[in-house]
């Protein structure tokens, strides 16, 4: 068998081929369908809205992230490490739960409007562009803060000390150059993430004025059965995401180091009371902005537990099954790509970021429905689509670990003749277990909270928890929806914990 050396590379090539087939090949059955097709004025308006909301979301996230990160970088206080850890949490936070929390705070009968009502002020609406941007800032401010905080902590402490000794201004010498290096990449990364936003726009968008391209794809399929039109919109989305991803990669800051965010830098320029108060206000404000909606969502959820509809149990079972299947698929594919490494694997791993999950799912179903009924494949297709969507993140978590194992043990393994599947079993799998567990947990949690393709195809008795929650919100059963959201959150965190633990148990032996 294997002549030469190295880990098995063929599975990675196959997975890359599969990704290309899934992400691009699924457009074909849609393009072949007769439909109205042709992009019209309103589609260009959706494109414009998509770009505007993504730019505003990224700009505000990064703009607010700077003072918060600076405050976190130069202050030490009880709970700081917990707060920094929490900044990593929104990534696995189900978007629909986050939206529910924001509605509890800013919605029609939310706290803010109740307070405005008490003082006789005008009520504000959370629907439309500002609502979409608000939700995206809520979801991405933590990411921006972490990226920028990393930049601050990467400035060697000696330089601050030197600047203090010389009485040199820190801002133009140290901070501004660092920000100029970090900010464009952070902006581009968040911009790209917001481009394909679906559930936020579905719930908080207000009609044709606030429609993203992905939402327009949903409407073309769900409302008009205009498959060709949906595929054309998906191509448009590939184009804008491709450009954005190119920028993001070009401007990208170095990958997030796992550690290093724990320390703070001793600073001599920020000891004044004014600076202290400002920093405290920024940290407190950010913590409140992130924790209050979540707290409200949990509180409402606990209160609504008795309102949970009978369908919840089945939906929870289906969601767990979909999440676990998606996780297994994702980890397998990510491992194959990580072993293959190189440009092909990177490209295949990044492709799903630009793909439209809805088009991917529809393409698969249009092909499969000639063989089996829609109801038989709706859930398996959902798991597959979720797996594809999580792949970029799983690969990002796994690839550095696999690369390090190869760098450390690769030559020894080669010299021992450990190649192919044996090398995988004896060397790589045991050592990569923590990363595999983390990637699996990430994929499971993302799938658990994902309201995507199932919103198009669920037949009777096929709802997943996020879909059930969206339906309850549509019927204004907010208490029951909040309780469902709490269940989603709990199950997502539980699945993440189980996978992550599973990867770490006995990792030392």
């Amino acid at each position: 068998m294997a002549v030469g050396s190295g880990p098995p590379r063929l599975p990675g090539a196959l997975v890359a081929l599969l990704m290309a087939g899934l992400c691009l090949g699924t457009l074909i059955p849609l393009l072949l369908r007769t439909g109205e097709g042709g992009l019209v004025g309103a589609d260009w308006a959706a494109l414009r809205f998509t770009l505007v909301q993504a730019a505003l979301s990224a700009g505000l996230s990064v703009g607010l992230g700077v003072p918060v990160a600076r405050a976190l970088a130069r202050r030490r206080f009880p709970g700081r490490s917990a707060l920094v850890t929490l900044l990593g949490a929104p990534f696995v936070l189900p978007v629909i739960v986050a939206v529910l929390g924001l509605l509890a705070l800013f919605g029609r009968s939310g706290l803010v409007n109740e307070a405005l009502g008490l003082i006789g002020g005008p009520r504000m609406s959370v629907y439309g562009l500002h609502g979409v941007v608000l939700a995206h800032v809520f979801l991405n401010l933590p990411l921006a803060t972490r990226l920028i905080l990393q930049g601050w902590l990467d400035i060697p402490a000696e330089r601050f000390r030197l600047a203090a000794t010389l009485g040199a201004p820190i801002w133009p010498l140290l901070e501004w150059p660092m920000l100029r290096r970090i900010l464009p990449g952070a902006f581009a990364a968040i911009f790209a993430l917001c481009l394909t936003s679906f559930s936020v726009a579905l719930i908080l968008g207000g009609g044709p004025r606030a429609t993203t391209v992905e939402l327009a794809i949903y409407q073309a399929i769900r409302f008009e059965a205009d498959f060709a039109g949906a595929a054309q919109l998906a191509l448009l989305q590939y184009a804008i995401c491709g450009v954005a991803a190119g920028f993001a990669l070009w401007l990208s800051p170095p990958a997030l180091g796992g550690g290093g965010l724990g320390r703070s830098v001793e600073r001599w320029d920020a000891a004044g009371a004014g600076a202290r108060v400002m920093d405290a206000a920024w940290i407190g404000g950010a913590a409140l902005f992130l924790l209050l909606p979540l707290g409200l969502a949990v509180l409402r959820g606990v209160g609504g537990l008795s309102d949970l509809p009978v369908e919840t149990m089945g939906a929870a079972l289906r969601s767990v099954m979909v999440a676990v299947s998606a996780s297994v698929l994702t980890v397998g594919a990510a491992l194959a790509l990580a072993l293959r490494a190189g440009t092909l694997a990177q490209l295949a791993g990044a492709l799903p970021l630009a793909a439209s999950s809805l088009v991917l799912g529809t393409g698969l179903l249009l092909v499969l429905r000639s063989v089996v009924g829609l109801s038989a494949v709706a859930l398996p297709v959902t798991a597959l689509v979720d797996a594809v969507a999580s792949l970029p993140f799983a690969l990002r978590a796994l690839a550095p670990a696999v690369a390090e194992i190869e760098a450390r043990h690769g030559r020894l393994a080669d010299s021992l003749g450990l190649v192919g599947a044996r090398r995988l079993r004896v060397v790589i799998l045991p050592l990569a277990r923590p990363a595999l567990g983390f990637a699996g947990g990430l994929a499971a949690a993302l799938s658990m909270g994902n309201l995507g393709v199932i919103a198009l195809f669920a037949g009777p008795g096929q709802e997943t928890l996020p879909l059930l929650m969206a339906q309850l919100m549509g019927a204004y059963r907010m208490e029951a929806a909040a309780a469902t959201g709490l269940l989603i959150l709990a199950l997502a965190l539980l699945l993440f914990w189980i996978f992550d633990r599973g990867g770490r148990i006995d990792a030392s032996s």
Partner: protein
Amino acid sequence: MNPTRAAIFALAAAPALAQAQDAPVLTVLTYDSFTSEWGPGPAVEKAFEAECGCDIRFVTAGDGAALLARLQLEGATSEADVVLGLDSNLVAAARATGLFAAHGTGAALDLPVEWADDTFVPFDWGWFAMVGKAGGPAPKSFRELTESDATLVIEDPRSSTPGLGLVLWLDAAYGEEAPAIWDALRDNIVTVTPGWSEAYNLFLEGEADLVLSYTTSPAYHLIAEEDAGYVALPFEEGHYLQVEVAAKVASTDQPELADRFLDFMLGEGFQGVIPTTNWMYPAVTPAAGLPDGFESMRPATTLFFPPEEAEARRGPAVEAWRTALSQ
């Protein structure tokens, strides 16, 4: 359990089990509000199951217009036997999919327009209207509405039959001027919902002064809630008429049962509950007539496009709506 008792138990249970397993299932694809607990669904289910020896299963897929897309997506593999809740404006598009089979019913219909169709069977009808609270803003025409600061919730014409009805209403009333009216309506519209249920809920929660619904909507508040506080606004342009239809799916595995359901649909058991559950005019007026207070407002002028003309106008009219509102 000893063997004898098990055998007796099995024998005793057998007929019930057999009936549960053998009863054919009729799957009816319909819109959300039809199956809600106060909608016609429960009463219709009870009445039809009592006479058919079958099990009727309602499946919902949003509002009326989304039903057609759902069936197109499922194609010939659909489990639906009957689709209930398309309307006159979608009949031509539905026919063109080839997914529906002729039924051929001979019942005499009480519709305000001519209806002769061997495939799409009307089950109720009504006039669209802006509904508001008594004493609230009450514009007398679309033009007056655009000039007022009254707020309005409407439905998406791509997913909802009332939404589509409004788009064609403006087209019928204003023709080439309709896009300008949409443009002027933009600042009155609070939001666009995917279906009627969501829009009416928002209106009831006080999110807007007016909602696009039917002339018969106030009857619901009057009769079911004994609340005379809601009015349908008469518009000078006239009111667009909607005829709601059902049809047999061509790929059904229960063709006889589907035919039987469509016949049942025009009988007393179905039509009798329509006025006070779906709050629409029944396609065949029941023996007892319409309930008191049902007709609080009857339009002076009826606007209506027959199916073929509605289909020709639908695309451009929806596009005009989408273009105006996406600005």
